[in-house]
């Protein structure tokens, strides 16, 4: 009975509405924060920071965005990568065209641009539902990428369509080392994750969920469907947009419109499904899983047993195992890793007794 909450009483509603009502969780959370902010930057190698931790954080943010839309507001979208692209290219253009604009401001504006585009492509959701909507969001995916390629102004007339991000400068400090980039990303992601948590535990989030669970009933109790759905589209796209900006500025450094393709959208969708639909924690778990799994498989199949396999077979096998593992995870727990975590905690609460 390691994980017991007996003896922890809530004396006020404020206490009861905390993000982590259980003490063990709170302690765990702060310990984790201390580690990721204070220990990791110094302990982790450049490879880990640059090739794993930063992308995991950025994808978590994108997954968080999609989770707000799909997990909380129930609107299935396959266009998240396109909104990331909007964020990345908008931020780039703000940095480029407004002299001396601080990076954070440009990033926020980039996010807002993505939010605007999100609202535009969210409009059909008022009439279209489910998979019909999902396919309709593909329109956003293809149209936005097409537009970014087609109008060279967006990429500042670069012949290859690739933009290369300016150096991030905040209060005169240039974020160039992997450590600095990691900390910057981590800080932004943490703030936005907290904001997301706050949204979903207040009326805003409850309205989203109400629309998701039963829109007729939601409307009858006075929720404006249009406003709520569009709000979800806006917030979600904002998150994706910021993730896109970070993708360009703290991760890859250079991006091209085609990098934000349908595959990336699917990847983000995977993250929330594997991680847990409608769960903040799930966005992080899913992102870590989807980023790490292929790398892990790659290392195992190419470095460890690679020599024994015919050329090319390793890569195919990697793909097969990846697909199979996703199916396996869905079967084991259709509600994602966040639910597994929760069940684990419930079991711990009872442990060592079975019930």
């Amino acid at each position, binding site marked *: 009975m390691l994980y017991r909450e007996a003896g922890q009483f809530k004396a006020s509603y404020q206490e009861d509405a905390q993000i982590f009502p259980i003490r063990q969780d709170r302690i765990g959370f702060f310990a984790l924060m201390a580690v990721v902010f204070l220990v990791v930057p110094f302990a982790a190698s*450049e*490879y880990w920071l*640059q*090739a*794993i931790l930063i*992308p995991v954080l950025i994808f978590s943010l994108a997954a968080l965005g999609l989770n707000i839309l799909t997990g909380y507001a129930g609107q299935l979208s396959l266009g998240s990568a396109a909104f990331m692209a909007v964020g990345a290219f908008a931020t780039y253009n703000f940095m480029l065209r407004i002299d001396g604009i601080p990076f954070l401001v440009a990033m926020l504006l980039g996010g807002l641009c993505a939010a605007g585009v999100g609202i535009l492509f969210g409009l059909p959701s008022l009439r279209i539902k489910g998979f019909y909507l999902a396919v309709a969001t593909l329109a956003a995916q293809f149209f936005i990428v*097409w537009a970014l*390629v*087609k109008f060279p102004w967006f990429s500042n007339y670069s*012949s*290859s*369509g*690739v933009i*290369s991000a300016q150096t991030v400068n905040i209060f005169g400090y240039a974020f160039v080392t992997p450590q600095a980039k990691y900390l910057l990303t981590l800080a932004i992601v943490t703030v936005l994750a907290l904001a997301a948590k706050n949204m979903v535990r207040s009326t805003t989030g409850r309205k989203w969920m109400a629309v998701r669970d039963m829109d007729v009933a939601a409307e009858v109790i006075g929720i404006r469907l249009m406003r709520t759905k569009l709000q979800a589209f806006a917030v979600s796209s904002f998150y994706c947009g910021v993730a896109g900006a970070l993708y360009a500025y703290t*991760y*890859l*450094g*250079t*991006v*091209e*419109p*085609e*990098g934000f393709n349908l*595959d990336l959208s699917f990847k983000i969708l995977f993250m929330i499904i594997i991680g847990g639909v409608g769960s903040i924690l799930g966005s992080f778990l899913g992102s870590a899983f989807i980023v790490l799994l*292929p*790398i892990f498989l*790659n*290392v195992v199949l*190419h*470095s460890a047993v*690679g020599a024994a396999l*015919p*050329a*090319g*077979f*390793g*890569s*195919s096998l*990697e*793909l097969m195992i990846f697909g199979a593992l996703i199916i396996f995870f869905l079967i084991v727990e259709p509600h994602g890793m966040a639910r597994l975590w929760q069940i684990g905690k419930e079991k711990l609460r009872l442990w060592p007794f079975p019930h």
Partner: protein
Amino acid sequence: QEQFIGLPSYRVGPYAAGGSGIYGGWIDYMQLINQRDGGINGVKLTWEECETEYNNARGVECYERLKTKGAAGNAMFQPLSTGITYSVLEKVAQDRIPMVTIGYGRTDAADGRVFPWVFPMITTYWSQASAIVNYIGSKEGGTDKLKGKKIGLLYHDSAYGKESHAIMDKLAAKHGFSVEKIAVAHPGNEQQSQWLQIRQMRPDYVVLWGWGVMNPTALRTAARTGFPREKIVGVWWAGAEEDTVPAGDAAKGYTAAVFNVAGANYPVVKEIQQHVYAKNLGNMEDKSRVGSVYYNRGVVHGIIAVEAIRIAQDKFGKGKPLSGEQVRWGFENLKIDTKRLAALGAEGFMPELNVTCSDHEGAGVVKFQQWDGAKWNVVSDWIAGDRELVRGMIEESAAAYAKEKGITPRDCSKEG
């Protein structure tokens, strides 16, 4: 004593056909060096593949993972993907690892003064476009005959396809022909409307700036709408067996630019058969692809890598593994003349190369091959583009980049 080379390969997905051929040829060549010569001056080559699926993010991960492997770190990085090239462009300079992009990547990186760590060798897209125009000119009886002609540019609607626009416009202005640009949306497995448009426009030639399934589809649809295949000239990503075989008879007569030719009769390929495949060490599963365009392109990659290391060893000490920085010097001083090519068994297989501090392209020429329904036949000698025009554009673009990034170009007259 081992020299490590990291290979960010891709063998699944839409790009797999090219990837498996090129990496196969490349690995086989390195295997040949190990088997036949016992390495470069006794230094064996080792390599590790890292699957990128042609995806930028995974390419970056591979880059980071591979860069510290081996005794002296990764000797060079050859991403075989323009996207990944851009993503690691700044990192290679920081990590001091040369990046080699043969026939793709960032065109203006040919200006070695601004991009000391990047080597877009043999030829760039712009040189190629210019060479294609020269080739068409030669078929018409001289570039002056191009005046008033109409060239259709059927391009893959992506950044890659659009690289052709600026240079073609410049060439059109210079030679007095007109360009009709027609976009094909990715993936391009349906081109009915594009070819009907072409039929309406009646261009004299069509330049096929395609990729993947777009190429055979273009040839088939051209056949269907009655456009002569002899009048279609493809780029080197549209000039492999993979692009013509699926089109069947429709591909007969189609010509494409290449910087390496197809064929298994070159001594270097024969030696691979003899030293590698005979010992069952070959990388290609489908052995019939040995000698194909992509395979041979891989062999070219191998030759260039090995020659650079050899030259660098001459300077930094034979018989020991080199760091990336040392290998970079090798690339910058890479000279492969006809004599050397003959010694390598690759005469006519690839062009001569002469890389310098300021010119990282080194050749800028292509050959043209025509498909006869069963195989590619070389139909031209090495044809150069308009070097002056191209170089001008490269320098202009590189200077803009240098300005944006605050880079002071090197003064090449002072380099050793």
